[in-house]
């Protein structure tokens, strides 16, 4: 009798976790000690190194969730639906983080907790409102097979919506202020480097957390299946 369950699903977990645990402190050090303090906004500007990577990773997460859903519908393999679910779920959390950090930054820069003139923030609000219906949608369908299928359809439509929405909101926002919040071009090299490292760190964090959630869910499912074959309820 084997001592442990073969760790088929958690194999990538350790290197990912280590990479994340290494990347985050490095990023933090860079943010606080290496990157120069921005002339106009001062210290608060450093939240940019958290907010923008969160935003980028969230958006990619939603789009990836949609792509995984396409694979699910084509292959009918529920593993892909599980991956899609985890990606979207995690992106939703990171998205809320984006909104919160964006709000803090807006408050610090312009004195308001919310600004309509920043298209990224506004687009995020809409996208979060949309994806907030993902879980209620899933739980409102009892049949697991149909639930997975409908969730995938939603993930695909919503994934296509993300870029479309950004376009529309961008067009509609009157640029009364220059877009300081979102622009990551024309950064001096020190800031650019810090930004890149932060982006890598946040991406690793996302990947690791997704991996954890996937492993946890799969293990739970395996456990349930085994206990059923052994006759436990």
């Amino acid at each position, binding site marked *: 009798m084997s001592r442990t369950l073969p760790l088929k699903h958690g194999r990538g977990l350790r290197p990912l976790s280590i990479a994340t645990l290494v990347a985050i402190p490095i990023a933090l050090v860079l943010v606080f000690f290496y990157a120069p303090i921005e002339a106009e906004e001062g210290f608060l500007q450093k939240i940019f190194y958290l907010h923008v990577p969160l935003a980028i990773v969230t958006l990619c997460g939603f789009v990836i969730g949609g792509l995984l859903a396409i694979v699910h519908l084509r292959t009918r393999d529920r593993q892909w639906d599980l991956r899609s679910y985890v990606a979207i779920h995690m992106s939703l959390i990171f998205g809320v983080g984006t909104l919160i950090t964006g709000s803090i930054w807006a408050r610090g820069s312009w004195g308001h907790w919310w600004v309509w003139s920043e298209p990224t923030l506004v687009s995020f609000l809409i996208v979060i409102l949309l994806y907030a219906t993902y879980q209620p949608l899933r739980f409102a369908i*009892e*049949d*697991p*097979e149909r639930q997975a299928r409908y969730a995938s359809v939603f993930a695909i439509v919503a994934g296509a919506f993300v870029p479309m929405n950004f376009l529309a909101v961008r067009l509609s926002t009157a640029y009364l202020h220059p877009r300081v919040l979102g622009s990551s071009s024309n950064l001096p090299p020190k800031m650019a480097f810090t930004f890149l490292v932060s982006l890598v760190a946040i991406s690793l964090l996302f990947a690791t957390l997704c991996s954890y959630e996937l492993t946890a869910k799969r293990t739970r499912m395996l456990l349930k299946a085994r206990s*059923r074959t052994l006759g436990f309820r």
Partner: protein
Amino acid sequence: MIELEGLVRRYGEREALSDVSLSLHAGQTLVVFGPNGAGKTTLLRILSTLLRPHSGGVTVLGYSLPDEAWAVRGRVGLLGHEPLLYRELTARENLRFHARLHGVGEERVEELLAAVALTDRADEPLKTLSRGMVQRAAVARATLHDPELLLLDEPRANLDPAARELVEPLIGPGTDPARPRTRVISSHDPAGGLAEADLVLGLRGGVPVLLSEAADVSRAQIAELYR
């Protein structure tokens, strides 16, 4: 005509149909017995292509499901618990709608309305008709496109004896040897069911507990299923 090999259909964790295998030839009648929830309706719905099998082989009319389901549609007639008709529309409007979906002409609609004796009530909304009449309209719907395979879920429910006689030529075993009518019937009536069966399948909790030629099955065995 129908080949099932290890058919499985799940509903969540539970198996609604568990390893069902059988072989039905053209022109034969399979009668399925079993208590409620045994999987009879699920089986019929899979054969009609409404549900996909989760594993196992399913071949209907020579085509394998679910991949070739599109080739089977239009050649199968399903008569389930629901009449599948719109209550606000009349019998004639409903049947014409189905006729259009199946590429069948309007004369056929009139033919069937006459066959189920609904011609004089054909222009009243279905919600004003009695249950028996609606069932007759449903029979007309199911046989409108002259299907080769009939799937009948307790077809004679809601029908009085006169109505049953009326629909018999439509859902009974075919009389034309050139066009054999294959049927799968789910039934709660041991005597009647056995009488018209060539093959008998007994289901309990999705598991096929009885499969045999009708001649070799006794009413007692069928009663056992419901115990």
